[in-house]
């Protein structure tokens, strides 16, 4: 019997899932989910604010409980797996990373926009020097050509990253565009390659499999798909599919299904689904984390969230620019009011 190829799974329910809960996880919930994931055999369990360490802000939403408390809660229950954290340079700092390391984080995901890898150098070097495993993420990968991804992946490799992920933050990639990006990265670097998918176009699992066909061995996923936008690649579904395809993940399928059904689903405030706004994000290529912020801003100013998202796309906004959503909604409302008030409109 041939050896099953091992796939490394990072479960981000307690990080990317934080977006879907407007960052309201409690330490008690974190401990319950982390224990379940650990017992199911998840290799890497990520816990952070949705926008990474230091992300608890007015712009991205304040966390209900401090990330240090949440990390501590996870750290105290994880026995087999590794605790992972996310850091976005420009939002989180080296200090945040050191604190997370002190609380037991062993894996650092360091994420930059697909063209800006060089802002991650100091954080990657620090993480390596502290003995952490480093996973570089090239966010909004659909905005970078395969050549650009290869170039930026090489930079991350030179800073000491162990793995680089094609990161489909907008859930906008399709099998052919995943394939060419993962292949370009695979050809350019000697270190591990992986994929982080969102489900805005219902392609997250399929795209993950395409990535594996091109040599990716690291996949991010979230139990119940709990994550930004229409959610992430659902861990339990991914595990089932990988198992059927003959890959090994070390994860117990029944147990991860139980975690999804019995622990994570009751925590969810609303089902993660492909709604008109999140579908628009995948279609227009907008950062999935903008979803709830765009909804809220649109509601506050009485405009259609899709119009807000399309304007975000037009301005080529990148991850971290949540601050423009209210301003866009406000200016759309003003424009609508001007149209209402214009003489031609009144005559008609």
């Amino acid at each position, binding site marked *: 019997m041939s050896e099953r190829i091992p796939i490394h799974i990072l479960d981000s329910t307690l990080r990317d899932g934080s977006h879907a809960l407007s960052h309201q996880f409690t330490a008690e919930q974190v401990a319950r989910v982390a224990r379940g994931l650990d017992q199911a055999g998840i290799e890497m369990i990520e816990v952070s604010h949705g926008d990474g360490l230091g992300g608890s*802000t*007015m*712009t991205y939403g304040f966390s209900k409980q401090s990330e240090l408390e949440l990390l501590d809660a996870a750290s105290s229950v994880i026995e087999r797996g590794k605790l992972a954290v996310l850091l976005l*340079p*420009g*939002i989180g*700092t*080296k*200090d945040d990373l050191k604190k997370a390391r002190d609380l037991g984080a062993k894996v650092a995901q360091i994420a930059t*926009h697909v*063209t*800006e890898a*060089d*802002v991650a*150098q*100091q954080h990657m070097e620090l993480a390596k020097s502290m003995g952490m495993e480093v996973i570089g993420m090239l966010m909004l990968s659909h905005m970078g050509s395969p050549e650009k991804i290869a170039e930026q992946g090489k930079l991350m490799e030179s800073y000491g990253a162990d793995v680089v992920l094609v990161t489909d933050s907008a859930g906008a990639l399709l099998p052919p565009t995943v394939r060419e990006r993962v292949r370009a990265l695979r050809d350019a670097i000697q270190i591990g390659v992986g994929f982080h998918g969102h489900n805005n176009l219902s392609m997250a699992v399929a795209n993950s499999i395409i990535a594996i066909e091109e040599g990716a061995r690291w996949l991010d996923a979230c139990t119940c798909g709990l994550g930004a936008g229409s959610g992430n690649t659902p861990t339990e579904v991914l595990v089932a599919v990988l198992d059927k395809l003959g890959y090994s993940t070390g994860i117990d399928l029944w147990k991860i299904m139980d975690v999804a059904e019995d622990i994570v689903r009751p925590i969810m405030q609303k089902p993660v689904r492909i709604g008109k706004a999140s579908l628009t994000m995948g279609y227009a290529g907008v950062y999935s984390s903008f979803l709830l912020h765009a909804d809220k801003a649109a509601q506050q100013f009485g405009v259609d969230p899709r119009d807000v998202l399309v304007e975000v796309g037009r*301005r*080529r*906004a*990148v*991850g*971290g*620019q949540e*601050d*423009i959503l*209210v*301003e866009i909604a*406000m*200016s759309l409302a003003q424009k609508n009011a001007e149209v209402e008030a214009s003489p031609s409109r009144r005559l008609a």
Partner: protein
Amino acid sequence: MEQIPVAVLGSGNIGTDLLYKLKRSKILKPTVMAGIIPDSAGLARARQEGLMTTDEGIDGLLHHGEQFEIVFEATTASAHVRHAPLLKEAQKIAIDLTPAAVGPYVVPLVNLQAHVGEPNVNLVSCGGQATVPLVYATREVAPVEYSEIVATIASKSAGPGTRQNIDEFTATTARGLERIGGASRGKAVIVLNPAEPPILMRNTIYGIVEESDPEELRKSIEEMVARIQEYVPGFRLRAKPLIEDLPGRQRKKVTLYVEVEGAGDYLPRYAGNLDIMTSAAVKVGEEIGKHLRAGTWEKDGLEARL
């Protein structure tokens, strides 16, 4: 009135943009530019403008020591750490645009008066120059419990120095919001956006402030914007200040959207983040220049520190 002679140390983009702005000053007169690359565009420009130039860096500059009183440091943080004691020994006032922060942070219109007589002042960061005055204007009406800013700049306007030490920006700017802006707690975020054509610098400023009159807040903020526009013409609010009640708390939330378009002197217009630094530097230089003319920037103070 006699102009105060000044030197520019560093002949790169920032030094050259400074040169353009200094040429327009009624208070300052650029006399020397020092670089280390003989055929740099900046030195060539300076020669055309009739300045003395040297390609021997700080040593060359100090040979012309009798030609200037103020030095604008537009090199790098590590270079300025080396230059600062030499400039001090030569009794030159240093206005430092690098993140070296040898001297105290200054923001024009806010805290320069507190540092009269200092031999060396530092300009915080571009985000600090673009946001601290407005936090201060808010603070003049009501105590600011929390201040947070998101600065978004064009990727093309962020040099290797900024990129390799992006934590410097977030930490320095947050400190500026607290120590100079007067917020009890500050947080800063920076985002680089690679869109083409490059975007203008934008800053969103959030404040949680104690219960206060929204009209007074607006008035104080808008007055400060008008005063900043006197030295940074491309500085503007993209929308009226948004002032909301925080439900269940005796607090107001203030949101300001600021855009900074550069003057397009030597640097491109989108690089408002760099323009506000060179503009603030010239403004600080002019304020110091006025003190020097009036004899109120104590050379004694300088000597006492040597």
